[in-house]
């Protein structure tokens, strides 16, 4: 069946305007000549930014006594979405009854599109790291969002002379950056000052040594918390004099910092004391530097262990201590919000606080209007009083 030729629906006012007939003729020609519009915007961006990735563990690489690398490939096979060195993956995980997620920096090179490596170090008592290190085996499947994060080298203003301070598994994004530099022969210098607990807990030690030997633009110094007899390298603290001694003058260099967040205030202080402006220091979000009651906005005299009641609109109510991040309690009570970075930055775990009061950790990257209109990033929000929250649960699994 063919339709009659297209006739535009012309407003009577147009008939009083010079040139209206010409416009009508052009529209008729367009209708006859143009193909149907593509309207699958979502499908078109999937190769760059997938909503969900189905991944399978294809290798488990023992790095140190505390650390393994999980090598993940696309369950259905094929290339993974591109990422920038320094970005992370938010892995959906179920441990027992708790559905949660964790963000892990990708340690593999962005030049490799067939796998992502996530390098996981055991956190004593940690729910997810212990599960991933002890329970996961080859062939296990995970889902995740696409690669995320802004802890990456930006050629626009970062320059080519870079310093990286890494602690523990915080070396993962540095490793991805270094691998990219050497594989592509990029004209960038990177000095890595890498802190580990002991000499047998240095992740990627052999590979870093080999790269350093072959690539003069990559310089690595290890700093140990507990030096063994015979250790000739540096020992903590990584203070301003030691930074200068190992890395040289900082002028003009972009400095990346990735490790436990509680160490950031000290390291930033040391870097700034060497004349590095704040805008030349970039820190990867990694949980919070100060927990209640040390959170800067924590009201004095309020007991962080005291219990409050949280009610979820359309869901159930439960009790939790004030000084705990809201998201953990929501997850333990079977109502996980969507989440990715879990460090206050990405905003995926945003919930509405309908009543009561929350306080945020310093790391919360809230919009001005979210503070004004009563929204919280539940991963770094602490309920000061009984609260009611509203959100749609995350769509993991």
């Amino acid at each position: 069946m063919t339709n009659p030729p297209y006739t535009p629906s012309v407003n009577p006012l147009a008939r009083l305007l010079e040139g209206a007939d010409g416009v009508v003729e052009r529209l008729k020609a367009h209708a006859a000549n143009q193909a149907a519009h593509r309207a699958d915007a979502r499908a078109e961006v999937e190769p760059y930014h997938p909503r969900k990735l189905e991944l399978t563990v294809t290798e488990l690489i023992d790095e140190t006594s505390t650390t393994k690398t999980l090598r993940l490939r696309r369950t259905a096979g094929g290339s993974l979405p591109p990422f920038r060195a320094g970005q992370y993956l938010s892995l959906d995980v179920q441990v027992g009854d708790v559905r949660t997620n964790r963000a892990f920096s990708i340690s593999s090179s962005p030049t490799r599109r067939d796998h992502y490596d996530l390098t996981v170090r055991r956190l004593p008592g940690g729910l997810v790291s212990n599960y991933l290190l002890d329970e996961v085996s080859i062939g296990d499947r995970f889902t995740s969002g696409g690669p995320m994060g802004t802890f990456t080298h930006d050629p626009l203003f970062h320059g080519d002379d870079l310093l990286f301070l890494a602690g523990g598994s915080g070396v993962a994004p540095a490793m991805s950056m270094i691998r990219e530099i050497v594989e592509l022969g990029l004209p960038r210098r990177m000095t890595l000052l890498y802190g580990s607990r002991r000499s047998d807990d240095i992740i990627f030690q052999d590979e870093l040594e080999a790269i350093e030997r072959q690539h003069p633009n990559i310089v690595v110094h290890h700093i140990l918390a507990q030096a063994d007899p015979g250790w000739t390298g540096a020992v903590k603290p990584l203070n301003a004099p030691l930074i200068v001694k190992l890395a040289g003058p900082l002028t003009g260099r972009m400095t990346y910092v990735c490790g436990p967040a509680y160490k950031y205030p000290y390291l930033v202080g040391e870097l700034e004391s060497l004349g590095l402006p704040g805008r030349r220091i970039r820190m990867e979000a990694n949980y919070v530097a100060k927990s209640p009651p040390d959170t800067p906005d924590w009201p004095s005299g309020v007991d962080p262990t005291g219990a409050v009641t949280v009610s979820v609109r359309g869901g159930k109510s439960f009790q939790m201590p004030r000084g705990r991040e809201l998201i953990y309690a929501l997850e333990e009570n079977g109502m996980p919000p969507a989440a990715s970075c879990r460090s206050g930055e990405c905003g995926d775990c945003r919930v509405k606080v309908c009543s009561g009061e929350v306080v945020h950790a310093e790391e919360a990257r809230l919009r001005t209007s979210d503070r004004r209109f009563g929204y919280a990033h539940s991963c770094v929000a602490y309920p000061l009083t009984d609260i009611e929250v509203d959100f749609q649960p995350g769509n993991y699994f």
Partner: protein
Amino acid sequence: MSTHYDVIVIGSGLGGLAAATTLQRGGRQTLLLERHSVPGGAATSFVRGRFEFEVSLHQLGGMGGHGPLRAVLDELDVTRRLEWLEDRDLCRTFVPGEVDVRLPHDWSGLADVLDGLSPGNRPQIVRFLEIVRETGLWQLTARVNLHRIPEQLEWLKTLPDVRRYALRTFREVLDEFFTDERLKLVLSSYWSYNGQLPHRIAFMDMARLLTLYVETRPYQVVGGGQALSSALVESFEEAGGELRLNTEVVQILTDGGSAAGVRLENGDTVGAKLVVSNAPSTTTYTRLLDDPGVVPAHVLQGLRARRPGASATCLFLGVDASPKELGFTAATTFLSANLDEQSVLRGANSLTEPCPFLIVTCYDVQPTGFAPKGCTQVVLSAIQYAEPWESLAPEEYAAAKASYAESQLDLAETLVPGLRDAIEEAELATPLTFKRYTNQPGGAIYGFDQDITDSWLFHDEDLRQNVPGLLLTSNWTTAGGYNSNLVTASRRCQGLLARGQ
């Protein structure tokens, strides 16, 4: 259907928010569904480090005096919830070595500046601005009085200049009045807010833009576009409306040829007497409806007669220096590399030449609350179509972004020397970014390509309910931008309420 509402609104972009708030406050039980974790669509912001960045709002038209947007926001009980700032000028227009003018927001002051730029043209300038004003006011008025066509016809008969010039391109009319290319460029300053260069934009549309900004003055809002979205949500919820975030609609359900509800991503169905779709017309009619056969054939043909419009490539910069240190005195600067319109056209369609044009917006001449003290948020926006970005392989994308950002920054440094050295945060959004976050075909930021053929005068079907029970409110059915979108969506819903539907 598990539950039933009077109205379901798909998408909490500005059109959806205005519709939902108007209908809920008009007594219709309304469910507003949004697939993102944040309401507002493009009227949102994001945070990087110490900075918050405005995604879409450059200058809010329609807020000053008896502006149409002010009237709607007053009626929706939104104005009082926000802090408004009036820009000191219209804009600054800058071409290195050629033009540097600040345009005031009054007609006589404007004539003075143009006369100063190109002495000896005053009579033509005054006459030209009179026609612009008359045509602009005519369009702004006619557009909201389509229910009074006989009266509108009589009025238009008395406006010979409007009848003569409205449908010509802005460029044709400029060429008729002036020879000085600098003067023509300055008069075309606002072309980018419609996404169409002077040789393609209708005189009447350019006149509408300029008139709206002069007559109602450009405004900013503290907290930016997201604050406006959140204020609309607050008013909607206070009136009893229900917003569900992280909830994607995958289908509009029909029953006997009428829209009757929606299916959600999780499989749930929800019923309603009226479905309002703020998704693009093409998406709504050809992808979301469970039975596209309910859409009249001429409506689908009409979609084919139009083209997806321009998108943008925006470099968001958090700068560790004050506006004063950077030399910003105007919130908005239109920056062209040269006087050659063709180079801007090529730049909109390719990545091979240096960026030829930018809207440079500084949100801290009067602070909108997004940058820390002593710092500045600067956004460099280029009008670009999605095609050159879409043609890149995914693995080429990051390098292409870096290279184009570099080119945008090079051009910006002709206006703000030393800008690069003070950057603390930088993020580039391309047409693919807009496509990703807004689901608009081609990442279009103003809906269909707004050349002369896209005028509402030739698309009466945009303002009709072409499928019973289904109303479309997106910028694919009206002129793009905050004022048009909010005002049109709200007024159309008031019309429905008035007719008791």
